[in-house]
């Protein structure tokens, strides 16, 4: 591989090889861990405020009346940091501590398969099969939620873990099929080409809304979004797999759920909402990497905001009803979405800009 980074772009030494090195930068900074935490803080605040507007109340308010309680989440984070982590004696200590950490790390891994710009200097990995890689990496984390439930040694956790495993079988196929329908339409797995093909305003979400809808619902199912908040349903099984966690470990668990939702949203923003579409990335670090990543982040935030708003409208499904929906309704819809993708490929909807140069 040719050394693609010119020295004056992102500096020498530690800056170039550790902090701004694209795989590390995308995993840790934007849209990685730090961006995900900032987004989680914002989106939890937005969820509480949006739900409060619908529900005849104000939400977070008293802590900073002029900004509408925006610093409430910072206060909650500080509170979680200083809270005592109570570890019950009967838990399996290694898995109890390792599982949330592993869940967070594995949730963030797909971000390294997503491009945020057209400049090859800033791709974390070669992008030829990036869509496939991203979708495959997204299926890694649920096992650790089940490990958390098992290690907690609590009946409610076990029930929650079992429900999580059922839900995984329901949504995984739907998520994979709906995200791959774009490959059917554009005949390529290269995410950069997919985004480039949408740059003329032909967002894939508009051309194949069925795929967008099923991917959206699959994301709700995987990250305990209403109406599918089943593994951690409060009025039935206290907090599901997270029952025995307190303090910063609980914050980490909740963070893992929102981080996973963020990763799914970034991928959906790239596939369905055109990525950095109207903007053409220029040269250099700021114009070529930072700005497109912010545009993608804003689109992903919009998707997450809609998911948060649904909290105010829906209740919770039962586990067998959620499985029924997943297999009886969503899988046929996802297959139909792939069919629509094939139809679009047949009618050459996206045939320009060399997109059809599939590695045939």
């Amino acid at each position, binding site marked *: 591989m040719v050394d693609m980074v010119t020295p004056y772009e992102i500096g020498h030494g530690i800056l170039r090889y550790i902090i701004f090195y694209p795989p590390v930068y995308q995993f840790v900074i934007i849209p990685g861990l730090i961006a995900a935490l900032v987004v989680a803080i914002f989106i939890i605040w937005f969820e509480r405020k*949006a739900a*409060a*507007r*619908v529900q*005849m*109340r*104000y939400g977070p*308010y*008293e802590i900073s009346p002029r900004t509408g309680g925006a610093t409430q989440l910072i206060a909650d984070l500080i509170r979680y940091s200083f809270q005592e982590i109570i570890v019950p004696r009967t838990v399996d200590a290694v898995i109890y501590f390792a599982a949330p950490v592993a869940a967070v790390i594995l949730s963030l891994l797909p971000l390294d398969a997503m491009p945020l710009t057209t400049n090859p200097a800033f791709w974390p990995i070669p992008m030829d099969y990036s869509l496939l890689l991203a979708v495959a990496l997204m299926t890694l984390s649920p096992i650790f939620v089940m490990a958390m439930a098992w290690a907690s040694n609590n009946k409610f956790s076990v029930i929650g873990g079992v429900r999580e495993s059922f839900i995984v079988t329901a949504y995984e196929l739907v998520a994979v099929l709906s995200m791959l329908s774009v490959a059917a339409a554009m005949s390529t797995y290269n995410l950069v080409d997919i985004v480039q093909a949408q740059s003329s305003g032909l967002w894939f979400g508009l051309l194949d809304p069925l795929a967008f809808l099923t991917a959206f619902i699959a994301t709700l199912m995987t990250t305990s979004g209403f109406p599918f908040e089943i593994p951690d349903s409060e009025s039935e099984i206290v907090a599901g797999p997270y029952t025995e966690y307190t303090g910063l470990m609980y914050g980490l668990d909740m963070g893992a759920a929102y981080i996973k939702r963020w990763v799914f949203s970034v991928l959906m923003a790239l596939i369905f909402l055109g990525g950095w579409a109207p903007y053409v990335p220029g040269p250099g670090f700021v114009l070529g990497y930072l700005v497109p990543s912010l545009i993608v982040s804003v689109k992903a935030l919009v998707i997450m905001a809609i998911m948060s*708003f649904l909290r*105010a*409208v*829906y209740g919770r499904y039962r586990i067998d009803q959620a499985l029924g929906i997943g297999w009886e309704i969503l899988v046929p819809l996802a297959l139909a979405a792939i069919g629509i993708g094939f139809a679009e490929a047949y009618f050459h909807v996206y045939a320009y800009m060399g997109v059809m140069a599939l590695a045939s």
Partner: protein
Amino acid sequence: MPAKIEVKESPKRGILGRIISGNVGALVLGVKYFLDPNRFTLMYPHEYIKLNTGYRGFIVLIYDKCIGCGSCARICPTRAMRMLFLPQKEGERAKKKYPVINYNRCIFCGYCVDICPTEALYHVPYHDIVYYNMNDLILTLDEFQKEPEYATAKEGIPVRYIFDERRGLVKVKAQEPPQGPESGAAPTASPAPAPQQAQAAQKQGESTSKPSEGGGSA
């Protein structure tokens, strides 16, 4: 006209129409309230409700009207009122029994105020007083005659709730004195002159004869 039995059915529609129209209806309603929320939260203690005179709050004694009959202590469901031989001022001899109250037990039912034959007890229209220890809740005769100090009124804005067809309750700032009945405020909301002032005016004016007759003419 006795009641009639009427058999009803849960609303049903076709399967597909039910799912799609149900979801769409719920989402549209959610968006409608998101854009135009209806909130009447009271931001206590920055605001506080200015309650009407009929509200059953803390109880205050008017010493001059009390005849020491003890009905209030006898009717009190929790035995919060007791009759004690106490002098009005130090150094005097105790002439009759007077009630004292223990707010640890009081449930603000208002029986004592209702049963007093001379209207010597009255409610103040607030109830959110705090004390620092439990002994302060047992009031002496002197404290019982004074209206408790309402700390919230010093810092908060008084508000009042008005019934409204579209929004249920609407919070408005309370004015002193309130407008007429057209504004929808309750008529008993006129802030009555406190009985201490009424008593002082009475003492300056004509003298009272018997407590049962001089019932608070202003």
